[in-house]
């Protein structure tokens, strides 16, 4: 209740800054891991946190009306499978979504903080941030996570959204220093990211339809799972499939499990015929 006793000097519209000044204990990167940062060159350093769940292949592809963003469901801890149903694609607000690769814990926390950040700004200011503004803010949050990178806790997202000023879907990728780069067609990250990108590159065309871009996304995840141990393919026995969302002018929409299952059935039937 501390915010109520006196009006805070802090007068910004950023939830991130609010936490930083008033509740630094809740900041992801400010936690005391009780030790000097173990440099990356010393992976067995005493303070490097041993195998935590990791997220793996996530991708985004632009199409005629917007962007499709998708990810597999597997989480790994070293050589063990830590989870089969992990969700790596998140709705951030009404018009943008992010997909994460890296250490699951801090990644999910970053998503939650970013969601709160955008909603907080919108409520205080009465208007939404511009898409550009949202993408920059995410870059700053990744930069703030840099100290954690030295403990091996890397979080890298892809951020997609619909930019109403430009009337198009946009894709941003990031590096661990918060560097923000725009991709004009597609991108994939994570341990199977390269394999996914290879597939997309072969089949990508400008102005794909929603169905085709979704099929391409699922095919790329399938191929990535084929090559990369860290990426999970469609699990037909348990009925677990990669998740996807589409972002268009109208906002974010989940792609239903049935639609994804149907597309995979189609894809697998084709594969079998080819053999």
């Amino acid at each position, binding site marked *: *209740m501390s*915010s*109520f006793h006196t009006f*805070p000097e802090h007068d910004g519209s950023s*939830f991130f800054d609010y*936490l930083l000044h008033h509740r630094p204990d809740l900041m992801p990167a400010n936690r005391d891991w009780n030790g000097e940062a173990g440099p990356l060159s010393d992976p067995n350093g005493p303070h490097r946190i041993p195998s935590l769940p990791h997220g793996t292949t996530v991708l985004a592809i632009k199409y005629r009306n917007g962007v499709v963003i998708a990810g597999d469901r597997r989480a790994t801890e070293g050589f063990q499978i830590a989870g089969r149903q992990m969700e790596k694609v998140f709705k951030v607000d009404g018009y943008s979504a992010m997909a994460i690769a890296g250490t699951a814990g801090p990644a999910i926390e970053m998503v939650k903080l970013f969601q709160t950040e955008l*909603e907080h700004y919108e409520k205080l200011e009465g208007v939404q941030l511009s898409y550009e503004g949202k993408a920059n803010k995410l870059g700053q949050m990744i930069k703030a996570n840099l100290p954690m990178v030295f403990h091996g806790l890397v979080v890298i997202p892809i951020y997609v959204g619909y930019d109403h000023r430009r009337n198009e879907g946009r894709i941003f990728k990031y590096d661990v220093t918060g560097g923000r780069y725009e991709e004009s067609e597609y991108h994939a990250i994570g341990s199977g990211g390269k394999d996914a990108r290879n597939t997309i590159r072969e089949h990508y065309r400008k102005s794909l339809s929603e169905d085709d871009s979704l099929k391409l996304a699922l095919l790329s995840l399938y191929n990535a799972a084929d090559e990369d141990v860290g990426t999970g393919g469609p699990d037909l026995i348990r009925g677990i499939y990669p998740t996807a969302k589409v972002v268009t002018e109208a906002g974010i929409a989940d792609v239903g499990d049935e639609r994804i299952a149907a597309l995979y059935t189609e894809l697998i039937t084709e594969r079998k015929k080819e053999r």
Partner: protein
Amino acid sequence: MPLPYYVSPEQMMQDKAEYAKKGIAKGRSIIAVEYQDGILLVADNPSASLYKISEIYDSIAFSGAGKYSEFENLRKAGIRHADLKGFMYSREDVTGRSLANGYSQTLGTIFSQELKPLEVEILVVQVGETDRPNEMYRISFDGSIFDERGFAVIGGRSEALQAFLKERYKADESSLKATLTLCTAALENITSQKLPLEGLEVAALDRHRVGRKFRRIPIAESRQILT
């Protein structure tokens, strides 16, 4: 050293209360009414951008009457409190009751300790999910808190509005149209002039919405509802 003038505590509180009441009486009024889908909020507000009604959290809205700078500060503090709580715990742990209590504490402390009391009256309303009732709290300048049923009124001429609504509000006739008509009639009655829709700020907490239940109702839509 000259002795400071003695003012009895009773006198001091009375003076402060009078001062605050005077400030609030100058302001325009705001009504919150329960309707079939949730809670409707209507403010007599000629500005299209300086809002008096605002979203705090998923099912909670805020509304302030009196001095703009003061209730705007309270609004922001409320959003910070709610977002922090939702981030730390879970979205469902953010409640209107705890927010109303926080406001009551703040206003009460300022009223008794500061030289100048806040010239504001605020409403914190929360729409209940299907099986839970709505909650409406009115908090006045000295921190006193009232749990309202059916409708709540803040701002200048609130007694006249209260009387008008008490006579006409019927819980079983609560379509959006009937409720909005009632609110405009009430505001027109106390200002004794025809209020154009451009001069009204209308928003609703609609329990049928998924996630964030707050929504502003633009002028064009209000017009459509009323015809």
